[in-house]
């Protein structure tokens, strides 16, 4: 692996950058692997990377039906945070946050992790209570959290309408200073390059069409490029978890929905914090390129189409303008959608399945991006040792039957409500 640095850039400048090696190889699939990871998004690639890096398992293939990072990895609003109330979520996302802090150096690939802070705005007394309750839980769990009053919020985000003259005046907010954004594509590329350098085969344009089992145990997969044997198979295919699990006869408590995101035209820096609103149902930040990036609720019905419809765009944009009345004259440049797997309690599933050797990582709902490194890390642990790490024990498939659900929003088994 050619090490990236200012010096390598300078060296290559002499050749007009004609001699850079490929960031990862494009090998033909082998006949057999120790582990096959289905899904070449951030989660799958991170899993492969940590299998090799942490567990010495390098005879690994990542199978991607399209192009790397082409699913939700490249379609989200790039927000990174670990501001959770419930114990299980808090510790897991905090592990992820710690991995974000060193990811660029660990991967030798600048993922532009920008700890600019994530601010949740409270617009009512119950929300103030809820945010303080969550902030307190975070602090007691050793996670950074600050409660800001309206004046502090106005200083932090000058363009925010903090006056009383709005439909839902801002009463306070919960800030996680270490939260922020990262360059989403770079995460996939960085993990791909790192995994590849450690011996992992990354195989694009290879769709899994079947999961082979023998006597209740996984033996390999069928793909559009032929059958491949494997001792263990991990599924990390946001948007298609149900379909992949069905190939192995596993029912999962998941519905697939489309979540839209959008950007404005680029403008000079004017928003230095990630802002989310509890009343207005939107989240917004400004990319390094200058675009305002924002999103909101699901379109609200099952969908496998990576495009959405207009009502949600209308609502999200109205929410942005309600928070930032000055943004009304800016223009919406591009909108897109990603298919998210909504679990029935709003928390992910990272677990063994009833099929031996088959492991599941899915049900990420709104928030898979920020979990990318932590998800890969615990999933690699689960696959390598055939048992969950303490950090993902709570994300089992059995929790629905036992009642140990992790319902952060208290919304119940209504996937759209998380």
């Amino acid at each position: 692996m050619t090490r990236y640095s200012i010096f390598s850039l300078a060296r290559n400048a002499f050749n007009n950058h004609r001699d850079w090696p490929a960031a990862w190889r494009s090998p033909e699939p082998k006949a057999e692997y120790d582990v096959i990871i289905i899904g070449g998004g951030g989660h799958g690639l991170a899993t492969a990377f940590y299998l090799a890096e942490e567990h010495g398992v390098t005879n690994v293939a990542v199978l991607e039906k399209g192009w790397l990072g082409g699913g939700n990895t490249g379609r989200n609003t790039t927000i990174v945070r670990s501001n959770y109330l419930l114990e299980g979520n808090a510790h897991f996302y905090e592990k992820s946050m710690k991995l974000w802090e060193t990811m660029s150096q660990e991967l030798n690939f600048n993922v532009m992790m920008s700890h600019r802070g994530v601010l949740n705005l409270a617009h009512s007394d119950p929300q103030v209570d809820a945010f303080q309750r969550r902030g307190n839980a975070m602090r007691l769990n050793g996670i950074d959290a600050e409660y800001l009053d309206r004046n502090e919020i106005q200083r932090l985000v000058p363009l925010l309408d903090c006056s009383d003259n709005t439909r839902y005046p801002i009463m306070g907010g919960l800030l996680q200073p270490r939260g922020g954004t990262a360059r989403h594509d770079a995460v996939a590329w960085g993990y791909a390059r790192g995994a590849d350098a450690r011996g992992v085969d990354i195989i694009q344009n290879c769709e899994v069409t079947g999961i082979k089992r023998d006597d209740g145990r996984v033996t390999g997969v069928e793909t559009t490029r032929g059958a491949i044997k494997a001792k263990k198979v991990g599924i990390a295919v946001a948007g298609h978890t149900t379909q992949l699990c069905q190939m192995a006869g596993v029912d999962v408590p998941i519905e697939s929905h489309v979540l839209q995101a959008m950007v404005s035209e680029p403008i000079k820096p004017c928003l230095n914090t990630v802002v989310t609103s509890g009343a207005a149902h939107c989240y917004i930040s400004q990319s390094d390129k200058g675009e305002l990036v924002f999103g909101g609720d699901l379109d609200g019905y099952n969908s496998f189409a990576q495009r959405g419809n207009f009502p949600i765009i209308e609502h999200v944009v109205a929410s942005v303008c309600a928070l930032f009345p000055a943004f009304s004259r800016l223009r919406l440049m591009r909108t897109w959608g990603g298919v998210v797997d909504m679990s029935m309690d709003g928390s992910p599933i990272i677990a063994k399945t009833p099929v031996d050797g088959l492991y599941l990582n899915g049900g990420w709902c709104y928030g898979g991006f920020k979990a990318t490194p932590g998800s890969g890390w615990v999933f690699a642990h689960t696959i390598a040792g055939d048992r969950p790490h303490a950090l993902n024990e709570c994300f089992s498939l059995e929790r629905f039957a036992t009642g140990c659900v992790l319902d952060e929003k208290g919304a119940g088994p209504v996937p759209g409500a998380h």
Partner: protein
Amino acid sequence: MLLINCPWCGERTQSEFAYVGDANVVRPDPDTVSDQEWINYIYIRSNPKGVHDELWQHIAGCRCFVKVRRDTVSHEIIGTAAPAGKIDGREA
């Protein structure tokens, strides 16, 4: 934006409706249900990539529930009916 044919009010735009979810969900008989069946009733939904029978409620109109057979990839609506009604055309 979807155009949904309410069996009573005719074609109306999506924003008049609320999505309810999988139309195949049937509340089991509480006297005979097994624990596993009950858990499946609460948590497991058909989630097909393709034709899906689902319920919507015409919330801004007649407030009736409408069964909609829709392709979850193309968003094509194959037909609609009352919740207990039958829809002709491509099956789920």
